[in-house]
């Protein structure tokens, strides 16, 4: 295992950071660590990097506990810290030189290629950079030595869409080379695009770990149908429809993207007289609220999509949203 945590728990005084995290990242995979802001993503990463010490539990990198051995293990690591801070008085090139020297030198051919691909001018002082350009410097220093494991905390923050696409291509290349990526994000399409597996963290707890293909089944659309006259919500008591709400002549609900779900809704809606329709991708927040409800349970309807032993669900009692 490249990353493994066992019962990893961190309290800041009485404030919960993360609790009983059992996380496994396998060699060669791109693992997305997904969760809303404040869920504990950065805390997990800082624990894995030995920047903060666990209240209990252990974190291991490359099969070794990080406590006491963090410096050696970090030779194989490329890290983009969350809320990246840089020394503004250095040029990007000097900054990369300095950080590279902490690792014993840099492959400048590769670094220059990276800079070109991310469209970054290395001769400028970092202090004059926009947020997005600073983020590029952060990515460059993480990728520069072709590490065995990349740990990236919200890597695409501030990047414009074209650069984001280039970043995704870089991740693809890292994966193709058999190296491992652990990236945190709160952006679902991003995780969709690059990850093999996803861990979902909510309020400090890992509520789900599953293959990205399984998560896709959980993707939701928000639909609002406005009819000529009131239609009973029970008319849309169909597979894949959830969180039904009625307001006057309108029905608002979520429909998942499992095969048949949307088709059923559209065919049922066609039986009524429709005056308005809104249909949009549900936000990650909606998905969290629907699938990973307050108590952190997974709905039984989608449980079967979890594949293999790694589709671990936190087995706590709570109401089953889908039923």
């Amino acid at each position, binding site marked *: 295992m490249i990353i493994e945590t066992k019962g990893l728990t961190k309290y800041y005084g009485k404030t919960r950071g993360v609790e009983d995290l059992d996380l496994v990242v396998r060699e060669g995979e791109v693992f997305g660590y997904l969760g809303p802001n404040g869920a504990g993503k950065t805390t997990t990463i800082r624990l894995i990097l030995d920047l903060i010490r666990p209240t209990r539990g252990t974190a291991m990198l490359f099969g070794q506990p990080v406590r006491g051995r963090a410096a050696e293990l*970090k*030779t194989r690591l490329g*890290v983009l*810290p969350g809320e990246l801070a840089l*020394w503004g008085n250095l040029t990007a090139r000097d900054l990369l030189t300095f950080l590279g020297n902490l690792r014993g030198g840099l492959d400048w051919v590769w670094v220059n290629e990276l800079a070109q691909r991310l469209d970054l001018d290395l001769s400028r002082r970092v202090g004059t950079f926009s947020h997005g350009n600073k983020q590029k410097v952060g990515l460059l220093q993480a990728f520069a030595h072709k590490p065995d494991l990349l740990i990236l905390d919200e890597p695409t923050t501030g990047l414009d869409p074209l650069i984001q696409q280039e970043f995704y291509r870089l991740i693809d290349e890292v994966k193709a080379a058999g190296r491992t990526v652990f990236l945190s994000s709160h952006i679902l399409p991003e995780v969709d695009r690059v990850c093999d597996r996803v861990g979902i963290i909510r309020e400090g707890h890992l509520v789900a770990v599953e293959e990205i293909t399984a998560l896709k089944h959980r993707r939701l659309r928000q639909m609002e149908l406005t009819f000529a006259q009131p239609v009973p919500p029970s008319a849309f008591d169909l597979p894949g429809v959830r969180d039904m709400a009625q307001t006057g002549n309108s029905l608002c609900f979520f429909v998942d993207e499992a095969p048949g779900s949307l088709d059923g809704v559209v065919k049922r809606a066609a039986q009524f007289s429709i005056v308005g329709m809104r249909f949009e991708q549900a936000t990650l927040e909606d998905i969290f609220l629907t699938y990973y409800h307050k108590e952190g349970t997974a709905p039984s309807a989608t449980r079967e999509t979890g594949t293999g032993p790694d589709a671990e669900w936190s087995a706590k009692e709570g109401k089953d949203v889908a039923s």
Partner: protein
Amino acid sequence: MWLRNLFAKTLRDLRGQILGWGIGAGLIGVMVIFLYPSFKDQTAALSEMLKSYPPALMAFFGDFSKMGTYLGWLNIEFFSYGPPILAIFAVVVCTGLIAGEEEKGTLDLLLAHPIRRWRLITHKFAAFVVATVLIMVVIAIIFVGSSVMIGETSQLGRITLATMNIVPITLAGGALALMASVLFRSRRLANMVALVVIIGSWFLESLGKVVDVLKPYRPIALFHYYDSSGALFGAINWSDVEILLALTALLFIISVLAFQRRDIAV
């Protein structure tokens, strides 16, 4: 070469401080030195005047016994007051070494690299030590140059020695500030605590010379172990220097141990 390692980079980041404090303190010295020729002629009259002041007051303001001499003049006008001022440099720099990077957020980036925490803090403190020595070198050069300009060339070695004698007390102040910054995590709080302790110890030592109640407490004052008169007139009291350097080492080791154990703040 300034980006070769953390020591070099820290020293590079301190170059403004080195020049600023070196030249700044040096210029105070230049003023004092250039005033000496006109003062020298008034020595007799001044000595008369000072005799009418209470001896206790004189003791507080320094060693006036050799005031008539060039070195005595420098002692009262610079070497007594210089170190508490240079302590501000030590405190501001040393609280910045760790807590400064921590508050900026760059410590997370540094520690994402294969560098052990004890090495990180050692590189940083070593840069402060070298910066301190360099500042004293700048001050000594300015003092020696100014002395030559006014024709006082017989005591250049003594002046250099007395300037270098400021190094140990400055290092001890810096180590104290470093420890405070590692323990308290807040740079502002560490600045305050360290400055209160250092300036307080200067007052304790100065007042302790004349106020009997304070006398027994003088040994706990940092400045009890800084003796400018010894460096200027007699011999350097090496046990004082050793005590200050040992204290520096002790405070630094406590800083390292505390830094090894604690969480890095976000």
